[in-house]
């Protein structure tokens, strides 16, 4: 990948909560410093400028309707670099839970007798539709990692999302294991990179950063079963953020 001189940057959002863009806005002074290195031409949440000429596109949100597919393909044609920003873009995020019920059932639950007027398709991460060059996982994104990725992008180097589990970071942080506390946790199968953010704050890992490439799902299933979870609970844990793996687990676990 070529190094980009003062690249033009655009932000686009799809199906999401816009929290990852807000993480950018929350960088405050750091954002202003970044703004000195790059040229932000399109950031609808905070700007009315509507630049259509850009090198780097940050994509927030999952693809979940027909129009999204058309739009992301257009963005791919223009952008030299596409970055999936946050869980929704990178893994489908919580949107994937929609896929756990037939779409007709989901529509009926929310829109009742007007369900037929809704256009929605299976929620997908961006790379299921177009090629993605960089991934920033997490719900929300973790700012130190965002900065690391931006550095890689402007230097034209690849960035690899950690492929070891959250447990590695959690141990370094000297947290007591949630399993020791008679609770379950997705840490053993979830990609690190967040510095075990949730466990540091007394909660469990919910798997928002996506699963490691070899999650040893069987052993995780064994661990979870050992602690008395039903199959349905295990699947719920695995698919809270990782529906793209849902069908696989449905097969493996049944």
């Amino acid at each position: 990948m070529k190094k980009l001189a003062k690249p033009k940057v655009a932000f686009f959002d799809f199906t999401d909560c816009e929290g990852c863009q807000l993480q950018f806005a929350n960088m405050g002074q750091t954002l202003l410093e970044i703004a000195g290195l790059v040229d932000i031409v399109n950031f609808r949440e905070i700007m009315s400028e509507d630049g259509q000429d850009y090198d780097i596109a940050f994509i927030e949100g999952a693809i979940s309707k027909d129009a999204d597919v058309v739009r992301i393909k257009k963005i791919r044609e223009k952008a030299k670099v596409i970055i999936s920003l946050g869980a929704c873009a990178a893994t489908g995020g919580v949107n994937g839970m929609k896929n756990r019920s037939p779409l007709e059932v989901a529509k009926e639950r929310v829109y009742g007798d007007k369900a037929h007027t809704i256009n929605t398709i299976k929620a997908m991460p961006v790379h299921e539709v177009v090629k993605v060059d960089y991934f920033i996982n997490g719900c929300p994104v973790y700012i130190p990692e965002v900065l690391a990725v931006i550095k890689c992008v402007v230097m034209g180097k690849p960035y690899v999302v950690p492929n070891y589990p959250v447990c590695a970071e959690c141990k370094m942080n000297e947290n007591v294991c949630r399993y020791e506390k008679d609770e379950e946790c997705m840490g053993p199968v979830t990609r690190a990179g967040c510095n075990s953010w949730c466990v540091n704050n007394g909660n469990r890992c919910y798997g928002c950063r996506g699963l490691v490439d070899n999650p040893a799902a069987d052993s995780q299933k064994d661990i979870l079963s050992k602690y008395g979870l039903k199959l349905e609970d295990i699947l719920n844990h695995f698919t809270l953020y990782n529906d793209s793996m849902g069908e696989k687990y449905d097969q493996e676990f049944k």
Partner: protein
Amino acid sequence: MTKSSSKIDSKNVKIDVHYLTRVEGHGNIVVDVKEGKLTKCEFQVIESPRFFESMLVGRYIWEAQHITSRICGICACGHSLASIKAGEDALGIKPSEETIMLRKLLLYTEQLDSHILHIYILVAPDLLGVKSIMPLVKTHRPVIDMAIRMKRMGDYAGEVLAGRHIHPISYVIGGLTQLPASENLEKLYKMMLDCRKDGEETVKIIKKLKFPEFQRPTQYMSLTSEEEYAFYDGDLTVNNGKKTKVSDYKKLFTETVLDYSRAKIAKINGKPYAVGALSRFNNNYDKLHKKAKAVAAELDLKAPCHNPYLNTAAQLVEWVHCLEESIVIMEKILKNGLDEKKIVVSSWPKRSEIDKIKYKPNTGVGCVEVPRGSLFHEYTIDDTAHITAANCVIPTNQNMGNLEEDMRKLVPELLGKKTQEAITLDLEMLARAYDPCISCATHLLDVKFI
């Protein structure tokens, strides 16, 4: 993308603001005036449907907070708290007073964060005639630095209290998973004290800006309470009239899905109503902190105020109120400390017990005032504490009908007096004044993407 012309035409105006900017989420404004007659006046919501109510079905009640905070990046704490309250109502759990105090603090600091974001980053560029905060970085650097400092304080509060502001971690059903670190609380307290003078400076700035003149009395709904300016608890009140219990919210307003494919719309007595800072200000004025009352007087904001553009001014008044109330709570915490036994709980029941307990099938409702207005979560659980039905009523949905009514009154008033371009800007500013958070509004329909 704004399609508009710069000549004055009193008979024909066609406005199509596609992808309104500087709001949270995707919305279009479509207005069509033919031969002097307003034929179309819509605020179209084009955000993708999210289906949170469907996703919640089959999930444990203890997961609801984690999932529903993902409805919105700005009001993640508010969604968490509404969700927690609904979960506690369904399970019959009563949190300690200390826990409630910490929840109020989180809710106040979220208003601080969100109101500053709205005032400086989303609204001020309009009033200063620029398209975004970016040019202001060059022309108004000290003000921008101040805005960033104020924003940082609100955001840092979320970090200290809940692990992070966007999708809080430690606030759960029953209490907190761990106490905030005392050294961080001290740092936060100092930042709050420092922000007082930034608030005073902001009042001076806002006072100089000119908001459009427009009046339309409507139904203003918010929580109210005998004890305080209500954010966390209270009864639902419309224009200081009869009070309705939160659990009876469905008796007060109705939500319908409209045929022309857009958000669900809510009505009270068959008419649209407004929620948010201006509604709270109108209903709770007497309970404002005296410093906030002084700011209202300085901004010439009197209750009841019927100019929706002044929602932004009401936000600044609330900012002062929430800062002062937060400082009171912080002083109490720093003086007395926090009692772990009364606050800290596990985020879920123990795994070895969870399946042995028979829960009472029940429905719980939770309501809090988030920056944009009253937010409701309602969950029904079965005897295994799994959610069987869920409903979330979002402030932006409640405001949508009211915004359109405002547009219907405003457009004819401006016809023949302003250019199409100027009318478009006034409409954009009006929509922005409501601080719409469209990604929040989960009941959304799809509009053709142009």
